């Protein structure tokens, strides 16, 4: 359902404000549902991976690929399956599913990491004293909470970056769901700039408030759910994988059914080839932007690290600033940035916040690994300090940060490039979606996913192995 806030004479601002707040609540509700699904899926999948080597071996590469697929890549899946299965609420479900795809992967991997790094004595303690049911409820679920809360911060920001994409589902035919993303887009389309700016302001303020009153507390206090909730949740964690697999199979069956009904004809193959050509030729433009953004992020990250190592009291300030930055969706800042810069610079400015947040967040952790007393005692300074102490100590964290930022920046280009009106793989993908050009969308998604995964497996993985050798 889409509410059009027509401006009546004299009460335009009040009307817009009310509509914007309602739209925001609708968006937050959708995101909250997606987040709940994400957390449930994350625990079930991560626990199954932790328990079974076979599940682990099968799931890790799948998650690796899925987290590299841009959100638009899930569009055909969401649209066909959910609308076909549930005509009444299909669009809503599709939106929740799309938001899920922008939230889930880092949370799943975070929970999995928490399980994998659980000290052996705790594993034995569960075996000896608790048994699996209570062990899951009181050890496994709580031990991963810190990572879950921390990743919610990142996932929420990421989902908001793609909020327009998940509320204005366009694949030839356009479906607009009532929400803050579609509210702002519609207002801009109508030329109703005051409504658009009101929507943007409401979005930014709501995210800042959410951060200040809820997300920050989750990360700082790591609240524990009551025992009864944990104990009920533990059955889901133990057996939820079957439900997740069932759901995934249903989705894929739906897609297969659709594909079977409309078998690919010769023109589609031609379209696909054209799409691949177009994608391959527009990829270098996006690659250049992504590399530029990563380079600047790495430089800023290292400078921030050097400053925090020198003055540890700066760390809290940096963390607060980063969290505030991550709670303001860059897409919503774009009219503001666009009034200063255009084109190429605007595209970079939109890609930059996400990348710098990932990089600096990860690099701050490296502070512990810089042997400060040694540096002081032997008077190591200047270039020697940076080249032989700071950068090597930071490298594992830098690689982790850049690896995340790398995939994130490619996916963000799908939103940033069209907004900045520059050519590139992101713009091509967006255009294909708007036109309902499924072949072009498939080709561009495949090319982007291949680039991200291939570089992850070669460049980043190798750098990571190098760095891991001297990391204790």
């Amino acid at each position, binding site marked *: 359902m889409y509410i059009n806030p027509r401006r009546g004479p004299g009460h335009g601002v009040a009307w817009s404000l009310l509509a914007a707040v309602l739209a925001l609540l609708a968006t937050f509700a959708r995101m909250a549902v997606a987040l709940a699904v994400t957390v449930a899926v994350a625990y079930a999948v991560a626990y199954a991976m932790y328990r079974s080597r076979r599940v682990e071996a099968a799931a890790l590469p799948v998650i690796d690929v899925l987290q590299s697929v841009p959100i638009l890549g899930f569009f055909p899946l969401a649209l066909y399956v959910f609308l076909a299965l549930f005509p009444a609420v299909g669009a809503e479900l599709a939106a929740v599913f799309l938001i899920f795809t922008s939230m889930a992967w880092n949370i799943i991997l975070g929970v999995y990491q928490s399980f994998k790094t659980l*000290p052996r*004595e*705790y594993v*034995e*303690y569960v*075996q*000896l*004293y*608790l*048994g699996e049911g*209570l062990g899951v409820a*009181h*050890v496994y679920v*709580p031990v991963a909470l810190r990572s879950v809360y921390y990743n919610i911060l990142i996932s929420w920001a990421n989902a908001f970056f793609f909020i327009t994409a998940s509320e204005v589902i366009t694949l030839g035919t356009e479906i607009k769901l009532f929400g803050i993303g579609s509210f702002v887009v519609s207002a801009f389309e109508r030329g109703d700039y005051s409504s658009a700016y009101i929507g943007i302001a409401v979005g930014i303020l709501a995210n800042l408030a959410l951060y200040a009153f809820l997300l920050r507390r989750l990360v700082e206090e*790591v609240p*524990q759910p009551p*025992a009864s909730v944990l104990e009920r949740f533990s059955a889901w964690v133990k057996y939820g994988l079957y439900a997740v697999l069932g759901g995934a199979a249903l989705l894929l069956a739906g897609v297969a059914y659709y594909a079977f009904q409309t078998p690919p004809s010769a023109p589609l193959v031609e379209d696909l080839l054209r799409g691949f050509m177009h994608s391959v030729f527009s990829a270098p433009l996006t690659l250049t932007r992504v590399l530029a953004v990563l380079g600047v992020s790495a430089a800023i990250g290292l400078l921030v690290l050097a400053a925090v190592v020198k003055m540890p009291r700066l760390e809290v300030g940096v963390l607060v600033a980063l969290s505030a930055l991550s709670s303001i969706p860059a897409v919503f800042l774009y009219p503001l940035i666009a009034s200063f810069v255009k084109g190429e610079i605007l595209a970079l400015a939109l890609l930059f916040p996400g990348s710098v947040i990932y990089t600096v967040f990860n690099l701050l952790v490296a502070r512990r690994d810089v042997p400060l007393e040694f540096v002081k005692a032997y008077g190591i300074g200047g270039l020697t300090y940076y080249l032989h102490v700071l950068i090597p100590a930071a490298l594992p964290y830098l690689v982790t940060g850049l690896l995340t930022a790398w995939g994130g920046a490619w996916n963000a280009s799908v939103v940033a490039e069209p907004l900045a009106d520059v050519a590139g793989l992101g713009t091509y993908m967006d255009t294909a979606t708007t036109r309902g050009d499924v072949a072009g969308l498939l080709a561009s998604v495949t090319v982007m996913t291949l680039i991200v995964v291939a570089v992850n497996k070669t460049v980043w993985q190798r750098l990571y192995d190098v760095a891991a050798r001297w990391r204790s």
Partner: protein
Amino acid sequence: MALLEAEKIKKSYSRVAVFDDLYLAVEQGEFVALLGPSGCGKSTLLRMFAGLEKPDAGVVKFRDIPITGPRREIALMFQSPTLLPWKTALDNVALPLVARGMSWREAREAAMRYLAFVGLSGFEEAYPSQLSGGMQQRVALARALAVEPEVLLLDEPFSALDPLTAESLRTELVRLWHDNLTTVHTLVMVTHSVDEAVYVASRVVVLSPRPAKVVADIKIEMPYPRNRKSPEFQRYLDLVYSHI
């Protein structure tokens, strides 16, 4: 019939043989200290008794019944306290009792008694991070005793503590076993310290490097509480050292 028995056990990790036909029996009422070089498999043996690991060949038995998994009669105390940071001292002790079928109310009452027993009355509502290392290890001891086992296995329980704290806990452990203050009648403790072994144990078993064999099995026949300054104590120390 021995209480605990490891019979002809073999165990290898990636082709390195840790045990090759090891035999060890522990009688009811003993306090056995397992001594040996690092990596000789003392902890592995302890974990087999606890039902956490299985030998590649041979059998580990409790009262002649093969041990196939954790048993209610056998509790293990780790080197680190291994407490849940998100639970109070009381709930840390109570949780395993809930796992054994008690209601939370009953479990907390029992936990209260065992916390008092290890000298932690008044700290029931404290979280582990608010307790010192020694107090955390006391909570872990209360947790192991609260499940009312017959056998308590200890994996270097005092090695992470400062010497004074370790000494007072050591003395208490000897007292609760020697004076029959709990359900525990038999203890097996892995240690690196010859002094600790001679101070607490009724029997010291020295293992060789991999693959581990019993190179010495010495009954320590001195009354408790033991006096480290006595010539007898010194003689036992020298005897044990001569096998290391």
